[in-house]
C-alpha cells in the first residue's frame, strides 16, 4: 500500500511541475516585462527610461534565463510567497488567503449538497429504469448540466424578485449559515449534481445485474435493504472517482457564481485580476485551481484500492 502511494506521488510531482512551468512560461513570454508593467501604472515616466528599467531588472534578477527565474518562482512558492500584485502592490498570498475561505466553504457545501441530492436521485432513477420517473430525473439532469452558471444565476435572481416581491436580492457574503448563500450554492451545485445523478444511475444499473443482488432478492431481502446495503456500497466507488471532475466544474462555476452574486472569493479575485491584467494574481489562482483538481485526482487514486480491493489486485498484477 505504502509503495503504491509513493509511486502515485512520484508520478504526480512532475505533472504538477509541468503545469506550473506551462503557466509560468505563458506569463513569462506573453505578458511582457514585469518591471515595465509595474511602472506603466505608477506615476512618473520611469517606464520610458530604458536605463532605469534595465538597472531595476538586473537588481531584481529578471535578466536571468527562464529556467533560473522559474526555479526561483517555485522556491518562493514553497515558502508561501506568490510575489506581489502589479496593481495594488499587496502580497498575492495575502489576497488569496483573504478570499480562499469563502470559495472553499462554498465548494465544500456544494460537494456535500451534491452527494446528498444526487446519489439518492440517481438510485431512484436506476431502480425505475425506463419508467416515467427515470425519464424525468434524467431529463432534469441533462437540463441542469447544460445550463451555464451565468445563465442560471441571473435568471433565478430575476425569477425570485418577480415571484416573491419584497425579497431582497441575494447579493453578498454572510457566511455559510446566511440565507443569502442558498442561491449561489444551488447554482454552483447544478452541474455536479447532474454529473453525479448520471454516474450513479449508470453504476446502479450495472450493479443490478450482479449475482449478489439477484441472490439477495431471491432470498426475500426487502427492496429497501437491497438498495441500501447491497447496491449502494459498490456504487459509491465509481461515483467517488468523479471527484476531480466535480472539482473542475466547481472551480469553473465559482468564477461566475461569485461574480453574479457578489461573493468575495477566489472567483471574483480572478475576474478582477483579469480586467487589470494583474499577472501574478492570475498565475497564483490558476496554479491553486489546478493544484486543487490534481490533488483531488491524487486522492482518488490513493483511495480507489481501499474502496475497491479488486482494483488494487488488478494494479498489482499489471
Amino acid at each position, binding site marked *: 500500500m505504502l509503495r503504491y502511494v509513493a509511486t502515485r506521488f512520484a508520478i504526480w510531482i512532475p505533472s504538477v511541475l509541468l503545469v506550473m512551468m506551462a503557466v509560468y512560461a505563458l506569463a513569462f513570454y506573453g505578458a511582457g516585462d514585469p518591471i515595465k508593467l509595474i511602472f506603466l501604472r505608477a506615476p512618473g515616466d520611469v517606464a520610458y527610461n530604458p536605463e532605469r528599467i534595465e538597472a531595476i531588472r538586473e537588481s531584481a534578477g529578471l535578466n536571468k534565463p527562464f529556467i533560473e527565474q522559474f526555479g526561483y518562482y517555485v522556491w518562493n512558492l514553497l515558502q508561501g510567497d506568490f510575489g506581489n500584485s502589479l496593481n495594488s502592490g499587496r502580497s498575492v498570498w495575502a489576497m488569496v488567503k483573504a478570499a480562499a475561505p469563502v470559495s472553499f466553504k462554498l465548494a465544500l457545501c456544494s460537494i456535500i449538497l451534491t452527494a446528498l441530492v444526487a446519489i439518492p436521485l440517481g438510485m431512484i432513477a436506476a431502480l425505475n429504469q425506463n419508467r416515467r420517473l427515470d425519464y424525468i430525473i434524467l431529463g432534469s439532469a441533462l437540463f441542469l448540466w447544460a445550463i451555464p452558471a451565468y445563465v442560471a444565476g441571473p435568471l433565478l435572481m430575476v425569477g425570485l424578485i418577480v415571484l416573491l416581491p419584497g425579497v431582497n436580492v441575494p447579493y453578498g457574503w454572510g457566511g455559510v449559515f446566511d440565507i443569502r448563500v442558498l442561491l449561489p450554492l444551488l447554482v454552483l451545485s447544478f452541474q455536479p449534481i447532474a454529473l453525479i445523478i448520471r454516474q450513479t444511475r449508470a453504476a446502479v444499473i450495472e450493479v443490478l445485474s450482479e449475482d449478489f443482488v439477484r441472490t439477495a432478492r431471491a432470498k426475500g431481502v426487502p427492496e429497501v435493504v437491497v438498495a441500501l446495503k447491497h447496491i449502494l456500497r459498490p456504487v459509491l466507488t465509481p461515483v467517488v472517482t468523479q471527484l476531480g471532475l466535480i472539482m*473542475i466544474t466547481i472551480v469553473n462555476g465559482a468564477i461566475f457564481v461569485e461574480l453574479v452574486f457578489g461573493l468575495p472569493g477566489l472567483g471574483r479575485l480572478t475576474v478582477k485580476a483579469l480586467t487589470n491584467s494583474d499577472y501574478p494574481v492570475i498565475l497564483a489562482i490558476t496554479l491553486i485551481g489546478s493544484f486543487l483538481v490534481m490533488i483531488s485526482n491524487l486522492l482518488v487514486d490513493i483511495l480507489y484500492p481501499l474502496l475497491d480491493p479488486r482494483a488494487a489486485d488488478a494494479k498489482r498484477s499489471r
Partner: protein
Amino acid sequence: MSTVQTQPAILADEPPVSLWRDAWYRLKRNRLAIFGLCVILLLAFVALFGPYLTPYDFLSQDLEARNQAPSLAHLFGTDDLGRDVFSRVVYGTRTAFVVAVVVTAIALVIGTGLGAVAGFFGNPFDRVIMWLTDITMSVPNLLLVVVINASLKTPIAQWMEARYLETLNPFYRETVWIDFLLVFGSMALISWPPYARLVRAQVLSIRSRPYITAAQALGLSNRIILTRYVIPNALGPLIVAVSAGLGTAMVLESAFSFLGVGVNPPTPSWGNMISDGLRVWQHYPHLLAAPAAVLGLASVAFSFLGDGLNDALNPRGSK
C-alpha cells in the same frame, strides 16, 4: 408451422439495415433528441442566413429608441445604445456557431491524431500522450484559457501591428482576427483531450480485431490501415463526442465573452450581451433574458441531441 417456414424468406427479402439507418431509427423515437436536433437546425439556419433577414443592422444605433421593452418593431427590445437586441442575438448566433465549429474541428484533428498515434503505436508514445492528456484535463479549463488569453493578446497584437506597418494591408488592422485567433487557439488547446482519450480507447479495441491483422498480413502501410480501417470504425462514439463538444464549445465561448476574454464588443456574442445585461437587469430584464434564454436553449439542445445520439449509436453501452 407454415409461418416458421416463411420467416427466413421474409428476412432474406429485406435489404440489409445499415448501422446509420438503424441509428436514425432509434434516434427518431427519442423525442428529446429530436427536439434538440430541430433547435440546432433552426439555430444553424439563423447563423447562416440570419444577418440577411433581420430588419436592423446589429451595429446601427437609434438613440431615440433606447432601452425599449420588447415590441413588434423590436422583438427583444433595444439596448442602451438603441441597438436592436433581436438582431444582436441573431448575429451572436453566428459568432457562437463559427467558434463552436472551428474550435471543435481543430480539437478533433489534434485529439484524433494524438489518440490514434497513442493507441496504434503504443509505448512510448502512448505513455507520453496520455500523460499530457491527463495533465491538460486536470487544469480547470476556464483558468487555462484566461491565462492564455491574458498573456498572448499583447504579443499577437504587436505582431499584427508590425505586419501592418510592413505591408500597409488593412487586413492586419482588423482586431476581430486577433480575437478569433486567440479564442480559437486557446479553446482548441483545452478541448482536445476527450477526443484523444476516446480515439485511443477505440483504436486499442479495434487494433486486435481480425480484419486489422488481415490488413497487416496483406502488407498495407500503417497510414492506410489507420485511415481506411481504424478511424472509420471508431466513428460512432466520435460523433457523440463531437455533438457534445459543439455544445461545450458554444457555452465556453460565451463564458469567455462574459468574462471579457473572448470575442470583444462591438461583435455581438451571447456572452458579452449577458454580461452587459447583468448590469441593468433590475431595470431592463429583457437585455439579460433574451441572450441568456437563447444560450440556455442552444446548450440544452446540444445536450439532448448528444445523449440521444449516444443511445442511438452505442446501443450496447446505454442500456
